[in-house]
C-alpha cells in the first residue's frame, strides 16, 4: 500500500474517521524503520532522533491537539486527541522524550502561568525546543508532601532555593525543572508550597543519575544548592501552583498516554508476529495455555479501551474526571504487568537459531518485563490507587 508522506492535515470537522485515517497514514509513512520497536532493523533511537520525530509529529498536526491555538496548539478536543492516540498506540514508536513538558508542565502553566509565561514556555514545549523535568518527590517525603523540605526563601526580587529531589525523570536532558518548594517550614505541612520553572543551567543545580533495573538512566537525584531564580520563574502564588498540579495530575492520570491500551494491543501483535516468524515459537501459539491467556489479555485490552473512551465521553460531556483516572491507571498497570510476565515466558523460548523477529521480540519483551516492575509503582502505587478508589469512588467509611 502506498503511503503518502505528507498528506494535508484534515479539518477536524471532517470527523474522526478522516482524522484517524490521516494520523494512521502519516505516522506509518514517516516513522523511520529503525525507530519501530517491532522491526528487525530497530536500534535504540538517540535523543535527537526522538526530538525530531516528535517535532515532525507536531508539525503534522498530531501533537498539542487540545492546547489553545494562541500557544501553538491545535485548539481541538479530547476526541481528536483520542483519535490520534489510538494511532500512536497502534504503531511501536518510542515514548515521548518530553512527557513532563507535554503532560504536566504545559497543563500547569496553562492553568496558573502568566500570559508571559504561557507565551514563553508553551510553544517551545510543543515544538520540542525545551524539555522539562519534574521536581516533586524528595528522598524522605515519598508521596507524603507534608514532609517536603526543599525551601525557597525570597530575597528581594529573587528566590533562593535549597534542597534535594529524587525520581526526577529526564533531569539530565531537561532545560527546565517544574520545581515544588516550600516557603515556610515543614511544620506548615501542606501549606506554603510554591512552584517554579527553574532553568536547569542555573548555577547550584547538580544532577546525579539513578540507574533503573531496566538498565536505563532516565531518572536522577537533583540537588539544589543556593540556587537563585528571579520572581518571574514563579508559577502562581504560594499553594496555587501545587493545587493546579494536583488537579492536573488527576486529569492527566485519566487522559495521559491514552494510547496505552492501543500500544498494549500493538505489543500483543508484535509478540504473536514474532512467534509466527519462527517455526519453534509458532508451536507455542497452538498451546491451549497461551491461546487462553492471549484471549484473556484481548478481553482486558478491550475493557481498558472502554475505560479510556468512557473517560473521554465523560469529560467531553463537561463532567469532572475526579478520581476515575485511578481505575484506568490501576487496571492498565496490573493487566500490562501480568502481560509482561506472559510475554517474557514466551520470548524465553528464543534461542540463537530463532528468527530475527523473534530475537527482536526477545530483547523488547525482556526489557518490557523489567520496565513493567515500575508500572505498579510510578504515578501512584497500586496501593495508593486502591486507597483512592476505596475512598473517593466507593466512599467507604474508614470509621463510623
Amino acid at each position, binding site marked *: 500500500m502506498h503511503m503518502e508522506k505528507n498528506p494535508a492535515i484534515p479539518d477536524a470537522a471532517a*470527523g*474522526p*474517521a478522516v482524522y*484517524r*485515517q490521516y494520523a494512521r497514514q502519516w505516522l506509518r509513512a514517516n516513522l523511520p524503520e529503525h525507530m519501530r520497536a517491532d522491526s528487525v532493523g530497530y536500534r535504540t533511537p538517540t535523543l535527537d532522533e526522538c526530538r525530531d520525530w516528535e517535532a515532525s509529529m507536531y508539525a503534522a498536526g498530531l501533537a498539542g491537539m487540545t492546547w489553545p491555538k494562541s500557544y501553538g496548539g491545535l485548539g481541538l478536543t479530547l476526541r481528536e486527541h483520542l*483519535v490520534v492516540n489510538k494511532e500512536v498506540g497502534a504503531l511501536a514508536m518510542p515514548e515521548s522524550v518530553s512527557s513532563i513538558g507535554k503532560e504536566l508542565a504545559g497543563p500547569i502553566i496553562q492553568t496558573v502561568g502568566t500570559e508571559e509565561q504561557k507565551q514563553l514556555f508553551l510553544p517551545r514545549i510543543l515544538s520540542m525546543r525545551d524539555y522539562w523535568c519534574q521536581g516533586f518527590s524528595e528522598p524522605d517525603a515519598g508521596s507524603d508532601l507534608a514532609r517536603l523540605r526543599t525551601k525557597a526563601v525570597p530575597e528581594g526580587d529573587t528566590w533562593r532555593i535549597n534542597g534535594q529531589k529524587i525520581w526526577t525523570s529526564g533531569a539530565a536532558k531537561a532545560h527546565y525543572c517544574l520545581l515544588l518548594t516550600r516557603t515556610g517550614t515543614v511544620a506548615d505541612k501542606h501549606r506554603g508550597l510554591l512552584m517554579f520553572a527553574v532553568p536547569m543551567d542555573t548555577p547550584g543545580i547538580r544532577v546525579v543519575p539513578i540507574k533503573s533495573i531496566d538498565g536505563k538512566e532516565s531518572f536522577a537525584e537533583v540537588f539544589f544548592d543556593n540556587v537563585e531564580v528571579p520572581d518571574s520563574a514563579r508559577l502562581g502564588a504560594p499553594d496555587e501552583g501545587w493545587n493546579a498540579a494536583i488537579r492536573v495530575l488527576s486529569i492527566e492520570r485519566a487522559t495521559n498516554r491514552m494510547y496505552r491500551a492501543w500500544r498494549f494491543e500493538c505489543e*500483543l*501483535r508484535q509478540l*504473536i*508476529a514474532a512467534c*509466527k516468524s519462527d517455526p519453534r515459537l509458532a508451536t507455542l*501459539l497452538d498451546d*491451549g495455555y*497461551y*491461546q*487462553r*491467556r*492471549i*484471549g*484473556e489479555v*484481548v*478481553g*482486558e*485490552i*478491550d*475493557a*481498558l*479501551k*472502554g*475505560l479510556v*473512551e*468512557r473517560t473521554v465521553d465523560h469529560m467531553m460531556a463537561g463532567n469532572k474526571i475526579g478520581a476515575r483516572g485511578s*481505575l484506568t491507571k*490501576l*487496571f492498565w498497570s496490573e493487566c500490562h504487568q501480568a502481560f509482561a510476565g506472559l510475554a517474557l515466558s514466551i520470548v524465553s523460548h528464543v534461542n540463537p537459531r530463532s528468527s530475527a523477529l523473534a530475537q527482536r521480540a526477545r530483547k523488547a519483551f525482556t526489557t518490557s518485563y523489567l520496565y513493567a516492575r515500575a508500572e505498579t509503582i510510578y504515578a501512584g502505587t497500586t*496501593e495508593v*490507587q*486502591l*486507597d483512592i*478508589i*476505596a*475512598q473517593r*469512588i*466507593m466512599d*467507604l*467509611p*474508614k*470509621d*463510623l
Partner: protein
Amino acid sequence: MSDNDLKPEEFAQAAAEAITDAQTRDFREAAQVLANAGLCGVCAPEEAGGLALGIEFALPIVAEAGKLRLQWPLLETILIAKALGGSALAAELASGARVATWALQGSLQERLAGQARHARDSDWVLVADGQGGGALLDLGSVEIQEDGALDPEHPQSWLVLDSAKVLAELDAATFAALQRDSHILIAGFVNGAAEGALATTAAYMSTRVQFGRPLSAKQAVRHLLARMRMLQEASNAGIQRVLRTDEYDHVRSTRPILVNALASAAFVLEKSIHLHGGMGFTWELPLHYALREVRKFDAAFGSGSLARQVGQDFIHSI
C-alpha cells in the same frame, strides 16, 4: 419509535420496577408484568408490538435483571423476539403470551442441546441448527433433562431433540447477529450481577462492626473492594464500548468482552461471598444465586473455551 431523546440509561429505573414486581409473581404472571412494561419486546419490531429499539436499550434492562437476580429468561426472550422479526411468534413473545429460552450449547443436528435457562417453564427454545443458522423449537416436543448439581432450584437443562418440532428458522446471518447481541446482553447481565453484589458487600462492610470499627476500615477489605470495583467498572466500560462501531463504522468483536465480563463477575461474586464471612456461606444471603448464574453462563460458553477461542481468533488475525 421515533423519540430520539430516549436514553438507554433511563430504561434502567423502569426495568428495575417491573423486574421487582415480576419477582413477586409466578413465571406466567412475571411474563405479563415484564411484557407490559415493554421489556420483552424492547427490541422487537413495532408490527410485533415491540419498541423496535436497538440492543443498547436492552442492555440496561438486562443489567438490572442481573443486579436483582431475576430468575426468568428475559434476555433470551428479548433477543428471540428481536430475531423473529414481524412474525406472529415475535408478537407472542413481546406480549408475554409466550416465553422463549436459548440452548447455548449443542444443535439440532447433534439432536442434543443444552445450557438453556428455565426450559421447564418456557414455551420455546432457540437452538443452533448445526449449519450456521438457528431453529426455534417447541419445548413441548423435546425431552428435558435437568442437571441441578450447580443450581438445584434453577437447574441447567439439556434437551433431547429427537422429535423436536421446529417453529421457525433463522438464517445464518440473523443467527450470527443474534449471537453477537447475546454476548453483549449476557456480559451485561453478569456485570449487573457483579455490580449488585459489590454494592451489597460494600454496604455490609461499611456497617458491620468488629473490634469497634467497621470492617471497611480495614485496608485489606478496602483494597479488595476497590479491586472488585476496578474489574467491574472495566468490564462495564468494555461492554458499553462494544455497543458502538469504531470510527470506520465497523462492528466490534463481542467475544473478548464476554470473556472479560464472565471472569470479572465470577471474581467479584466469589469475593463478595468471602467478605461476608460465615454469613456469606449461608443460603440466606442471596449472592450465591448470582454466582451460580454466572457459572452457568460460563459453562454454556465452554468454561474457558471462549477465552481460548478469542486467543485463537486474535492469533489468526495477525
